[in-house]
């Protein structure tokens, strides 16, 4: 199929170039069909093949011949390149060149699509074809040509599925503007961004987008089988384009992994546009097998001259500043193939500088060249037409003075489809040298220098240095000199036409006072030693460069690559023997004194007295307390996103898609003895998203943090948040608790019908949302429901009874104490705050005795955080039930260990200190129910993830590393590099969870009343 496609493509493009068919109104039609030959060139056929002293012949936009012994046709126009270089011109695959500016719509439905005859979601726009939005933009084209680009693959960057792209030549042939469009359907583009052409609020998050993509592919398959009675032009387009290369814009390494996960489900190997931070998880990136398209917008150095301001720069930012220019090199070393895009640069002109930096940091020039030529051509499946220089291929090449990536090198010409574009004059006469300038009886000594096309001028009058400026273009020499010294503002302006190198330059001078007269500059005999001088200098330069490169401190990449990161993402469990400690087991045996615990293979192998194991690392637990790791039933740390609030049900989204392992909160939670969390969706809608149950393995990849064989959970929500009581436009259903009930009845009725259809064996449309709800009805997925007041708690239990399932957990459940007997009868557990209240109306009757009352009625009760701060001291929160309600210590402790484990259906694995369970343990300095306790060591699966002593060492190392990196930043500034101002950064707000939660609600800023 692919071959056939290429064949068609080839025929199509070939026919485009074969014959002129446009009439002309410009008089006699001129066709430049003569061959053009370039001789004595160094031709880089591709990144790996260079032919010295070679000839290139082109005709009618294509390469006719290339090589050392090429016969030059008699009618050829010949350019002798005198040792200049020829490279294939560059191709950019992530471009919106020539695309119409799409204005954001400001009216229309908020929850429905605004198109008719297309997919139900407006952000799915495969029917969008770049060619329909295209207008050649000469200004941008010129910038791109000057950077060496010959063609770009452009598309309308709007929507989650964005439709097809087109390959465009960056120069317009006035006689045949159609030649500009090389191929009008080269690839299909996707991206994690909403369309501006609709107000439809779903999807509003990254996890909504991954879910939407999955559903769209499922629907397309369903449509392809002819099962859908209506016409859907979007799905038809999607199906039509399924064999095109699929290119998705991800934007950072986590999204690269997310995109690839979606593709894997449908056997689609995306080419992925990354973010330049892929070096952070190179192994996972490699495992995607995806080809990448990468930006080179390396951040500028931070200006840290003000030591107070320097404190605001995080280690993460400094390390990224260092490693971003090394990203390509890191990926190349790992054997990952990539193309380079100029997309994120302010101007494509900055491309060379950025690539030079990458090369300085170790990137192989050949790989850089491939990434701009052959790789993009391959990604489009057009490597036989563009991207290298071979007979029959498009005559797209640049002529340079030297190595294309060399600082000193210039691009003189950029030929596109055989059309010449002069970028820089390459045949100006040599004017460098010393001159004596005479005008108005004045004598000034001047020296003109030319450094690869950049001219400079020094002038001395009576050994006094003058201010000077020079330009030499198209044989016109213009320069200015100050009248007296360099500080003078009196300017004399000189202008001369210099047709060829000569010993005398004559021209006109306009004096600072407006008078005009003539000047003569007579060349002095050049002294030989100048050249050697220069040589010395460059050698010196090189030497000093080498020196600085050697002196450079390069930070180590850690997991995550931020403060307190680990050196390995996957440490192996140790064999550990914890001796002579007090164990609060959380089991019936209660508290054991002077006991030992042996850990092997990540599990609790043996608990007893006087245990020994010669191979084990010994930890002295004398005067300390050992417990199971804390489990937080309700958490939003380690997430890139919390709410998909675009629909009142989002059962199809999953928090597993948005796990963020680079959150410092993970480390801080470990320091508070937390080993497991349930990462819950927010509470913006009655039916929220699926949970991710995580181990706080600091440094692990998102996938490795998620529980293996994780029990399935989903977040539900009731009350003020889903009613949007404290924000919103008051139009989204439901606005009352009465409406909330009906949302559930409606969805579960539909899920039931869906299940019946599915069970009947008849064909059915796979619906991710319904599948999830069906799992609930079948008792395969459990609900954790955000809830506050007794009426709504009771209501959901009745709805569950009606549909024959059990509500697993009510979370928050601050009025649970009012219906604890009913919860017990239904079989629901409660996970609550210890003492929060008064933040909104529905917590008016929230009491800190809630946990004790529920517990006393036999409800499995847990204390949760829902907060990046409180998660750090859940042991204290558990102890509050001893104050409020006089709970006994063992029961209080279970509320943050065994009980949440039960609620999460992982109590057979974790939650207590028991032989055979996973070695998720905490060694405390005091009884953890005491305010005076600190976690000294936190282990997960037998690996020590937090250790007070280690933390101390890391603080010291962090301080030193910061100092070294700040020194590097200062060096960069002093060497004249561009810098950026330091800005305080606190991306993940303390209450980030809250943020989404205008959205989530608990600690929303609405409560800030600003």
């Amino acid at each position, binding site marked *: 199929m692919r071959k056939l496609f290429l064949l068609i493509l080839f025929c199509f493009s070939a026919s485009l170039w074969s014959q002129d068919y446009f009439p002309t109104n410009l008089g006699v039609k001129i066709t430049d069909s003569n061959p053009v030959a370039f001789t004595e060139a160094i031709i880089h056929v591709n990144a790996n093949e260079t032919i010295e002293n070679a000839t290139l012949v082109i005709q009618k936009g294509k390469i006719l011949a290339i090589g050392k012994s090429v016969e030059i046709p008699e009618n050829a126009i010949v350019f002798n390149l005198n040792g200049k270089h020829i490279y294939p011109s560059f191709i950019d695959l992530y471009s919106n060149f020539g695309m119409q500016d799409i204005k954001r719509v400001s009216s229309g439905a908020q929850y429905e699509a605004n198109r008719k005859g297309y997919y139900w979601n407006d952000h799915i726009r495969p029917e969008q074809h770049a060619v329909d939005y295209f207008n050649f933009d000469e200004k941008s084209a010129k910038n791109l040509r000057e950077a060496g680009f010959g063609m770009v693959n452009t598309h309308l960057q709007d929507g989650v599925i964005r439709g097809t792209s087109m390959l465009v030549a960056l120069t317009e042939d006035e006689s045949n503007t159609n030649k500009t469009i090389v191929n009008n359907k080269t690839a299909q583009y996707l991206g994690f961004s909403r369309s501006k052409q609709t107000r439809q609020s779903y999807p509003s998050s990254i996890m909504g987008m991954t879910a939407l993509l999955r559903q769209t592919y499922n629907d397309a398959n369903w449509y392809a089988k002819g099962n859908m009675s209506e016409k859907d032009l979007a799905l038809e387009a999607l199906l039509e384009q399924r064999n095109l290369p699929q290119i998705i814009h991800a934007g950072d390494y986590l999204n690269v992994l997310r995109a690839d996960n979606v593709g894997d489900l449908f056997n689609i190997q995306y080419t992925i546009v990354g973010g330049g931070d892929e070096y952070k998880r190179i192994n996972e990136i490699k495992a995607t097998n995806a080809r990448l398209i990468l930006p080179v917008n390396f951040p500028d150095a931070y200006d840290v001259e003000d030591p107070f301001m320097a*404190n*605001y720069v*995080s*280690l993460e930012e400094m390390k990224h500043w260092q490693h971003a220019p090394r990203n390509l090199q890191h990926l190349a070393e790992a054997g990952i193939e990539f193309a380079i895009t100029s997309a994120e640069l302010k101007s494509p002109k900055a491309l060379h500088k950025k690539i030079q930096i990458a090369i300085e940091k170790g990137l192989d020039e050949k790989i850089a060249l491939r990434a701009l030529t052959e790789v993009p051509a391959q990604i489009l499946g057009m490597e036989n037409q563009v991207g290298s220089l071979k007979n029959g291929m498009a005559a797209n090449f640049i002529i340079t003075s030297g190595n294309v990536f060399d600082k000193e090198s210039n691009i003189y010409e950029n030929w596109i489809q055989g059309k010449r574009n002069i970028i820089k004059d390459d045949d100006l006469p040599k004017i460098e040298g010393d001159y004596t300038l005479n005008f108005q009886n004045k004598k000034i000594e001047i020296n003109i220098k030319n450094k690869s096309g950049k001219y400079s001028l020094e002038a001395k009058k009576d050994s006094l240095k003058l201010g000077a400026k020079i330009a030499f273009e198209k044989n016109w020499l213009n320069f200015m000199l100050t009248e007296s010294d360099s500080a003078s503002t009196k300017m004399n302006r000189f202008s001369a036409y210099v047709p060829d190198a000569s010993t005398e330059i004559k021209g006109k001078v306009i004096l600072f006072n407006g008078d005009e007269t003539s000047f003569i500059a007579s060349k002095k005999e050049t002294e030989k030693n100048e050249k050697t001088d220069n040589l010395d200098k460059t050698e010196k330069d090189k030497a000093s460069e080498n020196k600085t490169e050697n002196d450079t401190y390069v930070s180590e990449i850690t997991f995550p690559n931020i403060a*307190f990161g680990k050196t390995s993402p996957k440490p192996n469990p140790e064999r550990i023997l914890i001796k002579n400690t007090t164990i609060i087991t959380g089991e019936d045996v209660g508290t054991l004194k002077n006991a030992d615990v042996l850990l092997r293979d990540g599990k609790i192998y043996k608990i007893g007295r006087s245990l020994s194991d010669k191979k084990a690392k010994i930890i002295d637990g004398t005067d300390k307390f050992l417990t199971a790791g804390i489990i937080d039933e309700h958490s939003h740390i380690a997430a890139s*996103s919390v709410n998909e609030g675009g629909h009142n049900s989002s059962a199809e989204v999953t928090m597993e898609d948005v796990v963020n392992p680079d959150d410092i909160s993970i480390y*801080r939670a470990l*320091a508070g003895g937390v080993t497991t969390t349930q990462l819950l969706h927010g509470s913006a809608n009655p039916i929220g998203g699926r949970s991710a149950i995580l181990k706080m393995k600091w440094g692990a990849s998102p996938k490795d943090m998620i529980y293996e064989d994780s029990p399935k959970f989903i977040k539900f929500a009731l009350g003020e948040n889903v009613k949007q009581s404290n924000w919103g436009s008051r139009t989204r259903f439901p606005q009352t608790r009465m409406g909330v009930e009906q949302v559930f009845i409606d969805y579960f009725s539909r899920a039931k019908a869906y299940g019946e259809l599915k069970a009947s064996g008849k064909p059915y449309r796979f619906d991710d949302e319904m599948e999830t709800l069906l799992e609930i009805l079948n008792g395969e997925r459990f609900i954790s429901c955000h809830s506050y007041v007794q009426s709504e708690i009771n209501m959901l239990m009745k709805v569950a009874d009606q549909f024959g399932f059990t509500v697993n957990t009510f979370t928050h459940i601050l009025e649970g*104490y009012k219906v*604890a*007997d009913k919860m017990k009868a239904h079989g629901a557990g409660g996970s609550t705050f210890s*003492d*929060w*209240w*008064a*933040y*909104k*109306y529905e917590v*008016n009757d929230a*009491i800190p005795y809630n946990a004790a009352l529920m517990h*006393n*009625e036999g409800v499995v009760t847990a204390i949760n955080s829902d907060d*990046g*701060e*409180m998660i*750090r001291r859940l042991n204290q929160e558990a*102890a509050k039930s*001893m*104050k409020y*309600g*006089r709970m006994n*210590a063992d029961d209080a402790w279970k509320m943050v260990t065994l009980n949440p484990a039960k609620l999460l259906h992982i109590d057979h694995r974790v939650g207590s200190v028991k032989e055979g369970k996973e070695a998720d343990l905490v060694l405390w*300095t005091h009884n953890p*129910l*005491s*305010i*005076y*306790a*600190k976690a000294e060591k936190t282990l997960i699966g037998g690996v020590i993830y937090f250790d007070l002593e280690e933390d101390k060492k890391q603080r010291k190392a962090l301080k030193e590393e*910061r100092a070294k990196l700040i020194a590097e930043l200062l060096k960069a500034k002093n060497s004249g590099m561009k810098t950026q101002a330091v*800005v*305080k*950064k*606190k*991306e*993940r*707000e*303390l*209450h*980030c969870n*809250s*943020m989404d*939660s*205008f*959205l989530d609600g608990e*600690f*929303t800023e609405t409560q*800030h*009343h*600003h």
Partner: protein
Amino acid sequence: MKFIPLYICAFLVGILSYAQQTPAPAQSQEIIIIGATAHLGNGEVIENSVIAFKSGKLTVVASAEEKNLDASNAQVIYAEDKHVYPGFIAPNSTLGLVEIDAVRASDDEDEVGSFLPHIRSIIAYNTESKVVESMRPNGVLLAQVTPRGGQISGTSSIVQLDAWNWEDAIVKKDDGIHLNWPKRFVKKGAWYDPKVGYKADEKYDEKVQEIYSFFKQAKAFANQPEALLNLPIGAMQKLFNEEQKLYIHTDAEKDILDALHFKSELGLKNVVLVGGKYAHKVADQLIEHQVPVLVARVHETPEADDDDYDLPYKLPRLLHEAGVLVGLENSGQMERMNARNLPFYAGTVVAHGLEKEEALQLITLNTAKILGIDKQVGSLEVGKDATLFISEGDALDMMGNILTHAFINGREISLETHQTELYERYKKKYAEQK
């Protein structure tokens, strides 16, 4: 707890008809507490103590072994194995100014405008707040009620937490003016954006200049009757004759230094730093300027990823060890309801290195000194107000903070609340079901 005596039920029915606990009447009889471990709040501990108070004032604070008292006319509380503490003080609080965060109608904490020294918190302080009464079972008996927002948010007052009305609640009226020092970085983007970032506030210097000129203008008007015609300027006058304190709220190192320069240039004497999340870095300058610190909430995450995970926990100790006079405050998200956790903030500081009695001072005598009410409250010393409580155990620890008695000016206050009432009601419901 299956059997509940009838009189408790009757009592419950009685109090449920009130919006709040009835304030206690004035102390009529001498009260003597015998046998408790007394934590004086000044760093001292008396094991087996005797504490007596009459007409609202402490008359005896001594060791029971050394002092025998005539208890014939007194109410005696035997408190062996129990602990006595001076009432905890919550400074820089908005207690009584907002009832429910998300209910706008219940919100009186932030007035419109930027320079509002004339705005006084005391007249809006709601003695009948359910949140206020919930402080007392944890030992928090005093608070500085402080307005929020603007550059100068207004004038605070110090109250005790058992009163019929704001006038009766006053411990110190209009004790100080609160200046929010400008921030170099301000939040950008939509408030609901999960990735809220910051941007440099280009108006920082301008805002600082505005503060300088407002204060200079106020100072120039000192002792001139015309000043009274200009309400904001008039309200500033007590700052310059040192009757009032200036509370400067700021956190960052450089911002604190800027504030100290401002203090010097204006010749201000009574200045308190509030917040001070990085105050440990400028401890020497704070000592040199004799500026005490009310340290930001201990139960908080560090500001920067690179900070020590325990920086907020240990910051009060770092400052104390450097010689700075330190108290604890807890402004921020859900600050009102969280004010009852004040003792546990102090307890957490102990876990991170401070001695227990020193940590206790952070919420008692140190705070009283900083607020300028230490002659009256803050420690168990003869002559001071009998504002104190008895706890079953260590009041800085959740496990021990269980109050049996609490007194404000010698008046034995109720330890019931809206929350304990609901607790008792539902406990009874379930007991009756069995």
